[in-house]
């Protein structure tokens, strides 16, 4: 697992526009988040994986809230902790997702990615059409922003804004879908 300095370098490169570095950052972050959530939701690996995915989208869409003058891990875990608290609050609110089932005794040393419970593809369908199309073409069908702009008749900045807004909404939908 990467240390603070290496992880910070990856995020900053990503912020500057290096997609490969951003991908590496998210991969490292996913491993840290998985350990964090698994440790706190023992025996609920699927919920933990849901939270990992939700938090990854949060880290991505809010990455401009990181300031290089402050420790990266403090930023990352503050967001992870907030997502966890939000999850627990929702679970409490919905009563039927009882927290009694948490098995504190179980040790889970693997921390490999398990399947998440929810299907992001279904959630994408709930986005407004413009955002859905932009995300589908750029993020899933691997088209460039320019190609997508040409195909849809929108401007490139319009596509970028649609993706950004769509992902923010997607994170909220992910949060809303949990514990159902």
């Amino acid at each position, binding site marked *: 697992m990467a240390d603070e300095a290496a992880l910070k370098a990856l995020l900053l490169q990503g912020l500057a526009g290096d997609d490969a570095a951003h991908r590496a950052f998210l991969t490292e972050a996913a491993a840290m988040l998985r350990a964090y959530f698994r440790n706190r939701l023992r025996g609920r690996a699927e919920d933990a*994986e849901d939270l*990992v995915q939700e938090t990854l989208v949060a880290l991505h869409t809010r990455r401009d809230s990181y300031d290089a003058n402050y420790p990266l891990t*403090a930023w990352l875990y503050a967001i992870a902790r907030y997502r966890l608290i939000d999850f627990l609050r929702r679970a409490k609110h919905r009563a039927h997702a009882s927290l009694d089932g948490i098995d504190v005794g179980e040790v889970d040393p693997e921390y490999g990615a398990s399947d998440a419970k929810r299907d992001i593809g279904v959630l994408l369908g709930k986005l407004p059409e413009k955002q859905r199309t932009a995300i589908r073409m750029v993020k899933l069908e691997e088209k460039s922003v320019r190609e997508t702009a040409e195909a849809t008749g929108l401007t490139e900045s319009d596509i970028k804004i649609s993706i950004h807004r769509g992902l923010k909404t997607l994170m909220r939908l992910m949060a809303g879908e949990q514990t159902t």
Partner: protein
Amino acid sequence: MKTDDLIDALARGAGPAERSHWRRNLAITLLAGLIAAAALVAIGLEVRPDIGAARMPIMFKAMFAAAAAAIVLPLTVQLMKPGRPLGWRIGAILLFLGLCALATIVALMGEMPERRWEAWMGGAMPWCVVLIPLLAAPAAVLLTLLMRAFAPTRLTLAGAAIGALSGGVGAMAYAMYCPVDSVAFVTTWYALGIAVSAALGAVLVSRFLRW
């Protein structure tokens, strides 16, 4: 979707992050909140008729309110973003409150004993405790919208900070109406009005900050 696929999708075509103009946006937000509060005073409360003759005490009160807002500002900025240390920014607020208490006592000591009560209470019910939070509302709404674009993770504190900052902005506008010019009145009841705004922010604003 597998987590690895999600990571691929997020990173694909991500490009450079948008540069955030949060300083400019924050300045515009505060200015808009102040203008809205001043408009509310002009429409709903009426500017005091002796505004020309009383410009010194009005300036003093507006400066006090501006100082309170300035003291809360660094804390608010830290709470907009995840994982920022708060440290001295909370200390600064406590120090400011201590100075308010000290100023109140010194000012009251300077009054004749039989006039102290009036100097402290302003001769009537201190309405500013109610009116400052009301005038803070526009700034609070705008600041909430601004903060939602960021990623606050301590919502109660962030709500309180927004409330206090808006309270300072509201109090600046309130100074144009407020007929009481005693120092002890301002350092007590303006500070309390801002504190009430902070408490309301902690309860109400925090609910709208969830993301």
